[in-house]
């Protein structure tokens, strides 16, 4: 009997299409795995009936010889940042606990239209603010990975899409949606040895996705290999007139276009990413990545992205500024939590509701954002940060005159233990240092597994491409995947 947990998106889609197995069998098998993996705390809500329902529809379509969608029969996990009609959507925050949207986000609707089914809503950092999935109101997500030291320290699955990364690595689902504001797809993918791509800003509609930082938020797929990411991104992307920042462009056939022959391509290696005191394992993996791409035919060139060191501070001004405004709507008036103390007036209600509803990290970022936008500080922080953002975009523009793609590590370290960085927000923020520049420039960027650390934990290689060149990014990802021999899996301890 087929172990459906070992199949990826393409295998499930093709198996269902060829009649090798029924979509319902896959959904049932994965529903069972999800239900048995509570220890990982990857899901906030499980929706086995939704997975079955979608699978039945696909099986019926196939029986009736109707054309099948790009994701037909593939059960996936849905990050709880996407509004799903009739299913609680919380952004992992108490303030939205019990909120059941009457509408479906464009991206999730696209996936259901393509024949995917929903296993459940995935846990995440609260309002996508975090790099370790420790800010969720619904508890930490645990990585399925353990260090090879024989201990059983619970490790972070990365964040903010930590439920997604944990569930895929634990083979609860072949793929899941993620969202990436400053690395929230790439860093968790790197931490658990899977692939994930943040497309060009504007490829995937933001309509119906709970907003964190509107000018940076971008949805993307997370899966166990590059091809699966390509398939799922095709299903998710597309112009949406309901999102003014959506790109009015056709969706390329990324899967069909996959080509790991990189002859004629130039890969840039940015010197600024080689930080002083860089982790040895990371440096080694990066060198391996360079060798693999060379082997695939690419030419390696050294490049400079001189404003890189300002990216993180600029990001931690812009993202909280936007968030402080985006999160003003959670006021206890129309939906979600309302805390109305005895005799309270309107202002008291706002204060009580927001104090009770938002977690510590969310409150911290709202306060930072409010501060940097306030009278007298706006120019010193927000305006300066926007200038830095423009300079960072220009750095990349200049780099493209020398190269087609950029290779760098995804994160500066392997997964850390839960609780190791929570007391020091700055060290947590530093985890985004390699991911943030591509976010600020709106460029497509992907993480693929690059090897294991000495502790036996996955490390990720990041490929950054020109705007709209997801194909180039995926191709380089595929070239690495074919050469890295990455087959390591987390042992099933849960």
């Amino acid at each position, binding site marked *: 009997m087929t172990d459906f947990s070992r199949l990826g998106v393409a295998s499930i889609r093709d198996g269902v299409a060829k009649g090798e197995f029924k979509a319902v069998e896959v959904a049932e098998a994965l529903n069972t795995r999800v239900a048995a993996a509570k220890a990982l705390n990857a899901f906030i809500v499980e929706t086995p009936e939704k997975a079955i329902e979608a699978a039945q529809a696909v099986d019926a379509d196939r029986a009736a010889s109707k054309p099948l969608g790009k994701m037909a029969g593939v059960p996936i996990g849905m990050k709880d940042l996407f509004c799903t009609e009739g299913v609680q959507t919380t952004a992992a925050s108490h303030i939205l606990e019990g909120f059941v949207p009457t509408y479906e986000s464009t991206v999730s609707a696209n996936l259901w239209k393509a024949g995917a089914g929903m296993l459940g809503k995935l846990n995440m950092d609260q309002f996508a603010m975090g790099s370790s999935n420790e800010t969720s109101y619904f508890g930490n997500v645990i990585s399925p990975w353990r260090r090879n030291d024989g201990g059983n320290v619970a490790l972070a699955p990365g964040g903010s899409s930590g439920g997604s990364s944990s569930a895929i690595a634990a083979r609860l689902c072949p793929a899941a949606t993620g969202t990436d504001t400053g690395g929230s797809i790439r860093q968790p993918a790197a931490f658990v040895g899977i692939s994930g791509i943040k497309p060009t800003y504007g490829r995937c509609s933001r309509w119906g*996705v709970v907003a964190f930082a509107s000018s940076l938020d971008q949805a993307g797929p997370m899966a166990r290999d590059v091809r699966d990411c390509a398939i799922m991104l095709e299903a998710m992307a597309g112009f949406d007139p309901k999102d003014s920042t959506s790109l009015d462009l056709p969706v390329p056939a990324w899967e069909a276009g996959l080509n790991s022959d990189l002859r004629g391509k130039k890969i840039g290696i940015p010197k600024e990413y080689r930080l002083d005191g860089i982790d040895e394992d990371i440096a080694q993996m990066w060198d391996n990545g360079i060798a693999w791409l060379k082997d695939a035919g690419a030419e390696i060139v050294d490049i400079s992205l001189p404003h890189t060191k300002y990216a993180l501070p600029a990001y931690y001004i812009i993202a909280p500024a936007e968030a402080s*405004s985006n999160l*003003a709507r959670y006021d206890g008036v*129309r939906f979600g939590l309302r805390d109305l103390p005895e005799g309270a007036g*309107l202002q008291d209600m706002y204060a009580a509701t927001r104090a009770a509803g938002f977690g510590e990290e969310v409150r911290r970022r709202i306060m930072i954002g409010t501060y940097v936008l306030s009278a007298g500080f*706006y120019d010193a922080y927000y305006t300066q940060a926007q200038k830095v953002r423009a300079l960072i975009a220009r750095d990349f523009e200049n780099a493209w005159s020398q190269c087609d793609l950029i290779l760098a590590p995804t994160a500066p370290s392997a997964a850390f233990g839960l609780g190791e960085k929570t007391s020091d927000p700055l060290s947590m923020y530093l985890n985004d240092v390699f991911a943030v520049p591509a976010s600020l420039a709106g460029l497509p960027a992907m993480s693929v597994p690059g090897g294991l650390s000495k502790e036996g934990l996955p490390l990720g290689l990041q490929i950054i491409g020109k705007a709209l060149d997801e194909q180039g990014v995926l191709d380089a990802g595929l070239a690495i995947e074919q050469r890295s021999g990455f087959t390591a899996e987390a042992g099933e301890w849960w």
Partner: protein
Amino acid sequence: MSEYRIQGNTGEWEVVIGLEVHAQVTSESKLFSGSSTGFGAEPNSHVSLVDAAMPGMLPVPNRECLRQAVRTGMAINAHINRWSRFDRKNYFYADLPQGYQISQLYHPIVGEGEIEVTLNEKDPDSAVKKIGIERIHVEQDAGKLMHDQHPTMSFVDLNRSGVALMEIVSRPDMRSPQEAGAYVKKLRSILRYVGSCDGNMEQGSMRADVNVSVRKPGGELGTRTETKNVNSIRFMMQAIEYEAQRQVDLIESGGTVVQETRLFDPNKMETRSMRSKEDAHDYRYFPDPDLLPVELDDAFLEECRASLPELPDAKRARYEAMGLTAYNAAVLTAEAETAFWFEDLLAEGVDAKQGSNWLMSELFGALNKLGKTLDESPVNPKQAAELLGLVADGTISGSIAKQVFEIMLETGQGAAAIVEEKGLKQTSDTGAIEAEIAKIMAANEDKVAEYRGGKDKLFGFFVGQTMKAMQGKANPQVINDLLKKMLG
């Protein structure tokens, strides 16, 4: 314009006024959502997911609202900014679901312009003054709080939430309540001509924030106060008068004016402090990251310009060139409704002078008596043209036309039908008229003699007598001709 001065104990004071007029943009749907903008609907019946600021909802600009703002800008000869941007104005209030208003602080869609204001539109000799307009920007309206629905709670109606407003910001160029009143009247007239706002102040489609300060004539500008949300021209003028006097009294009694927001109470005819500068919100404006900058191309601007109607000043000049008096031209063009009514009349082939005289005397007189506005007139331009046509072609006389018009107002019948039914057609039957003239001459031999003796003025007497004898239905020209022949 006449100088408006406040007499204080220390001498004369000059008042300086600037206005921020909020005008609701005429459009079917809201600025960033497809919800209806209809007035007077059940509370919360025109509210989309976007208007209620549900999680993950995004604004999409309504091009029609931007088009109306651009057309308005063109109508005041303003600079149109081809590149503009929306900003968020952040504050918490129950009528503001997003927690921010989408507005335009840094880069408004319309830049500097001006309008010409005549203190007395109906007086052709009244001086003309240019009032500068600093900018027009587009923004969302808020919802409405209802405090009278429940003993301990306030209710929120979001029907207005997200409706498009134009904020039209003047320079502090006005120096009297009258000038401010004339400015708002002219502005409203332009908006109605353009069709970008219905100018209906009773329904809140137009309201003004009034900035007032006082100074010694020609001196340094004083500290201003802002009186919010004044919703009629009369109230605005009263508020200015009160506020200027209050500031003069305050300064002269040793106090200082504080920069603050005030409210006008029309019942007590006074302004009251609402909040001072120290309590002012920090709105934390920043560019709305959900929206791209607004970029206007040539084709769009060209369409906006081509769609502009003839504006009041140009129309008035044209009417004068057509031979109308300056007074008539001013009255006919002051309000868009009047001008459009008159244009319709001209389109029906009515002579301009005849039409304007009739409209201003007969129609306005009748409407005045009926207590109706031009929009509610029981007689439309087509019906009026029929009546005036009967006068022009000699079918009825002017005096008979008055009778016919009264019947039209009462019954709604057409002029020709009334003339036919009542037998009011004027006669040019020379035989019948000659017979009457002969009788009148026989009965007034003395006057005939006097006339023939050189008393020309008596001609009118014979016209009147003949018309009376013909019961008003004789063609006056024919009477004239016959009388001249027979008396001659």
